[in-house]
């Protein structure tokens, strides 16, 4: 194994270890199987927290070395460990409950798990030989990372000459951390980091939704998300699109599960992933607005949950302010298109075709299979239920409605964005990926309660055996 691969594996192991400390502190780890199940969540929490801190470190004018990364990991882990000690958390001692292999449902779940593992293995091999990056990657995303690696920090001279100089810097920072641990700026092997992000996302999905969704359905959609053609095609291209999509979707998962279960640790996870979403790409702020808007609509009747959602969102947003100050104080090219307000008025004729572009791309089978239609149908059917199932459906649908309008706004306000749907001429095929991945990830959660509602209540003299999802979702029938 080359030094570069060892470096990427090592730094992701370090992120996972940091994340495990965070999880132990904020949630506790009950058994070794619990640890194993939450490794993906730990990886994503550790990666997001350390990288966001590293961006702030760079913005503060400091150099980013291996030692600094280790210190940042300690800075993230130490308070979490302290919290764990205060809460008298114990280390996992027991192995935990293994699934029983007697039922067809469990065997189906295991088969789907094996299929997901096999496909992720195939994607790993593709990452190992990746040879292509896109124009945006070599024009500015990776040169920014190279600048951080070679010149120690945010090299103003180079940043000033690059396109997208004010774009958020989480991805270049993560790439630069990888370079540090690789021992060289080995660009082709950055694909391995993207692979770790995808694996972290999918295993987090499995861990976060497991208490709410029956396993076979959950793993069916893990496989579904893994084989989305445009995800696989774009994963290793070196752009920040999938990075921001993954952080956004994980933030949404934390939020959706918090809305359903109200465990406090989920809000902490939501905040960390949201901060990473802001720091990954400028579209991240747009996606966050859609998600938070959706959550506020879904929880509107009580409004008691608005305060925690808004407070955590504001805290996450605060971490992105230093970057804004950095580039605006240096008068770099702003992160919004020049004259976008005027363009809105002068380009009213673009509204209708802009909607058409967004809808066409969302429903293009060759890109995204049927992720969006399935989730939309499930959500609409979920609206006929009450309680938390309806809340989840409303949250998803409201986020989608806001998201479609947000993407339409991008096309409308920026006349240089082409109104055709060809990959190379408009950024929207990449941008809709966030909504598609959100659909694929939330589909099992939206579908599970629908599959539990067959038996008419009047004809069931004895209490039916209820699946895990029903226990937790407190579904009520109209």
């Amino acid at each position, binding site marked *: 194994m080359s030094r570069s691969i060892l470096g990427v594996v090592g730094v992701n192991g370090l992120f996972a270890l940091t994340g495990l400390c965070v999880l132990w502190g904020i949630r506790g780890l009950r058994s070794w199987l619990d640890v194993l199940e939450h490794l993906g969540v730990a990886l994503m929490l550790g990666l997001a927290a350390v990288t966001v801190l590293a961006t702030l470190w760079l913005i503060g004018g400091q150099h980013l070395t291996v030692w600094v990364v280790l210190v940042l990991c300690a800075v993230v882990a130490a308070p979490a460990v302290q919290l764990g000690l205060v809460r008298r958390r114990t280390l996992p001692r027991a192995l935990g409950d293994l699934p029983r292999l007697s039922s067809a449902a469990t065997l189906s779940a295991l088969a789907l798990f094996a299929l997901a593992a096999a496909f992720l293995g195939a994607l790993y091999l593709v990452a190992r030989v990746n040879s292509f990056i896109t124009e945006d990657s*070599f024009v500015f995303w990776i040169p920014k990372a190279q600048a951080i690696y070679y010149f120690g920090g945010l090299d103003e001279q180079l940043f000033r000459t690059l396109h997208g100089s004010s774009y958020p810097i989480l991805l270049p920072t993560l790439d630069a951390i990888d370079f540090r641990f690789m021992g060289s700026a080995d660009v082709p092997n950055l694909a391995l980091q993207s692979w770790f992000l995808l694996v972290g996302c999918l295993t987090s999905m499995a861990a976060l939704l497991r208490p709410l969704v029956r396993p076979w359905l959950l793993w069916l959609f893990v496989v579904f998300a893994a084989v989305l053609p445009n995800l696989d095609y774009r994963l290793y291209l070196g752009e920040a699109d999938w990075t921001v999509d993954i952080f956004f979707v994980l933030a949404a998962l934390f939020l959706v599960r918090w809305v359903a279960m109200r465990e406090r640790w989920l809000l902490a996870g939501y905040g960390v992933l949201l901060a990473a979403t802001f720091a990954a790409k400028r579209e991240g702020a747009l996606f966050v607005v859609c998600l938070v808007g959706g959550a506020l609509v879904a929880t509107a009747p009580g409004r008691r949950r608005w305060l925690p959602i808004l407070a955590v969102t504001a805290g996450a947003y605060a971490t992105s302010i230093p970057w804004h100050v950095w580039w605006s104080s240096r008068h770099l090219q702003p992160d919004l298109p020049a004259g976008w307000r005027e363009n809105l008025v002068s380009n009213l004729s673009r509204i209708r075709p802009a909607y058409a572009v967004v809808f066409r791309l969302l429903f293009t089978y060759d890109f995204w299979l049927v992720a969006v239609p399935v989730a939309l149908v499930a959500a609409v059917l979920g609206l006929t239920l009450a309680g938390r199932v309806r809340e989840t459906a409303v949250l998803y649908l409201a986020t989608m409605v806001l998201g479609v309008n947000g993407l339409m706004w991008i096309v409308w306000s920026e006349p240089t964005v082409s109104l055709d749907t060809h990959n190379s001429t408009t950024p929207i095929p990449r941008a809709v990926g966030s909504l598609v991945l959100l659909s694929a990830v939330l589909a099992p959660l939206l579908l599970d309660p629908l599959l539990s509602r067959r038996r008419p209540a009047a004809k069931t003299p004895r209490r039916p055996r209820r699946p895990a999802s029903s226990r937790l979702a407190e579904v009520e029938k109209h």
Partner: protein
Amino acid sequence: MTLRLESTALRLLHRVEFAHVRFVGGILCVLAAVVVLALQVPHRFEWAKHTYDANAWRSPARRLLHTGETYLIPTDFQEAALTYVPRGSTFAVLPPPSPEIAAKGYGIPYLTLIDLPFWLQFLLLPSRMVTPSKAEYVLCFACDTDPWSPLTTWIWKNDSGELIGKVRRR
């Protein structure tokens, strides 16, 4: 006949509960996902195998250069740039006199000319790309060499009009 059918349909509709609609809808959604996966998974594995096979033969260095090759930047020119431009130096990219000359004389498409400086900046970092007047090295891509020859020692060239030169003190 029609009236009887309509009343039967209405009676059926009354009997149908939301729970049934939801259940059937949920099952159909799951079935749709299963069918799509059954059709798609073999293709995705094939795609992964094809992508692996298409790239596995490249050495790590060639993997780095491949994107440049897709923009029709010659491999030997990229390798020479990596070899002859020292790390930490300054360099400038000298383009052809015009896109027309590039296209007609050398078969270089316009897109290559647009992306060439960005690609070389990416490839040669930590060397810095500067304006030609400040450069220690010049990378001539089908350029007009006449103004540069008196000032430059050409240290590499190929048959396609690409040269690399070290600029002498001006």
